[in-house]
């Protein structure tokens, strides 16, 4: 199965991993490389001892990142048959959705910028993990960073598609006021836990912003899109809480404390 962002899950059973708990492999359809298969070593490999590193680009992080990823390595894996291009494109594009007025367009714009910020944060995080600047990184964390990046990239693309379908240009910048805060936290990060806390903050900001926007949206399609992404971002948080050693569902009701308000 291939996600709209091009990440293909292969070598995994229905649980998401094979019985040895090994590294999921990736295939980037756009690059056309085969799945990566390595022999199991039975223990975590520290960052820096792995295969050759590649430079990251904002897109397709998962496709090139798998080689340099730390962690329990994969056994020989079987890849799922590639999804037809037409199906990929249909799911990537989705139905045409437009903003009905300037207020809704403002929400769409904010959403696109927040997703840009999230994707960029994960991209930089992965580069830091890959460069070893935050020390050893658990396999689950490295894998999370790659998948989260791809998902936020897909979300950014979707919101920008709404903008272009509404006859406006796509946005490729973060919202005002947040980049400095993110950069400060990023610069201060010494361990993977620091980057995970940064990611948690970004996810809370995006998720809470979607929740806060729901009452003001009138288009059913935009409500559905915002809600859909709110779910994913809440689930990102649950995983981050878990790897950080905290209870994954801390709230009875999701709040809007972290919502971005310009």
């Amino acid at each position, binding site marked *: 199965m291939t996600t709209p962002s091009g990440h293909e899950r292969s070598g995994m059973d229905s649980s998401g991993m094979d019985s040895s708990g090994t590294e999921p492999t990736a295939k980037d359809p756009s690059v056309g490389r085969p799945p990566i298969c390595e022999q199991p070593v039975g223990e975590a490999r520290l960052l820096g001892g792995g295969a050759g590193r590649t430079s990251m680009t904002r897109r397709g992080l998962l496709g090139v990142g798998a080689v340099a990823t730390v962690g329990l390595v994969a056994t020989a894996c079987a890849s799922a048959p590639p999804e037809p291009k037409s199906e990929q494109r249909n799911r990537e594009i989705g139905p045409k959705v437009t903003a009905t007025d300037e207020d809704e367009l403002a929400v769409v714009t904010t959403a696109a910028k927040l997703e840009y910020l999230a994707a960029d944060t994960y991209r930089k995080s992965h580069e830091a993990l890959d460069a070893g600047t935050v020390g050893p990184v658990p*396999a689950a964390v490295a*894998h999370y960073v790659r998948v989260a990046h791809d998902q936020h990239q897909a*979300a950014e693309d979707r919101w920008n598609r709404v903008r272009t379908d509404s006859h406006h240009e796509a946005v490729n910048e973060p919202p005002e006021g947040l980049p400095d805060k993110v950069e400060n936290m990023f610069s201060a990060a010494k361990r993977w836990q620091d980057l995970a806390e940064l990611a948690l903050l970004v996810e809370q900001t995006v998720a809470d912003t979607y929740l806060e926007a729901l009452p003001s949206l009138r288009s059913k399609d935009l*409500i559905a899109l915002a809600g859909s992404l709110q*779910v994913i971002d809440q689930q990102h948080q649950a995983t981050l809480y878990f*790897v950080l*050693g905290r209870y994954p569902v801390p709230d009875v009701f999701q709040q809007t404390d972290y919502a971005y308000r310009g």
Partner: protein
Amino acid sequence: MGRERGQRGGTGEASVDDDAAACLDELIVESRDLQSDAMRAARASIPDLVEVREARRGQPVDPSEARRFDEGRRALVRRLGLGAGGAAASGILGTTLATLLTRPAAADTPLDVRIMQTASSLEIVAINAYQIALGLPFIANGNPAVKKFAQTTMDQHSQHNKAFQSQARALGGPPQTAANPKYAKRVQQAQPTLKALPDVVELASTLEEVATNTYLSDLAMLTDTKSRSVMGSVMGVESQHLATLRSVGALLRAGKEELVKIPTDAVALPAAVGSVAFPEPFEPTTMASPPDEGAVR
């Protein structure tokens, strides 16, 4: 009208002009003819209407269609002056007509209320399911993190139910106090098969996914913005219940139950735990329950 042509009033004096009486009689005859024709046409159309009913049976109400219908009737009430304070609102006929026209479409219960009721019904199923789970020996005496999750989640669902019930009342409808019939049956059927922790996790995952998908689907159907906020707020938490269960299920299937704990050993976690909780970049509504599924009957 029952009065014969030429009948006089009680005073004995001529109260209706003969020409006017003749006109009135003609109008009465014409009216009866029109009614006969109308009844004949109505009877002839009944088979077609039955066909339409059968074709639409079981189909969910189109919320936008229901909303337009309701708005159309309210607009008609205003135009006819049947609304509050309207000149035509007085009298039995006016009052009756106003009541008929202002009654919401689709089973006389607004869609938003039915959505809240169905949400409550799903929460009640979840509460019952976690209660059953906590009564199982391998949960009650098993993994402490799992037991804590079951207890906490049950409590959270209880509060979600109260919020949905409160919102149903706020919208003018009765709260739902019964479990969703479809999923209550599913839990009942699953109960004898709950032999080990993975069985419970699988059942709970299904219920949480139904709730998440249903609430996501509901967001776009709700017209009341406060209700939408409540729904979104609860949906955010159900999402995390689902994410947690997916992660736990994956660890169990990989034979890593020892990592189901808080705090966990992050270094020992299999890589795929980093993404198993969110298999898609956009949450679908595949398992969403329709608004009427758990509505008060």
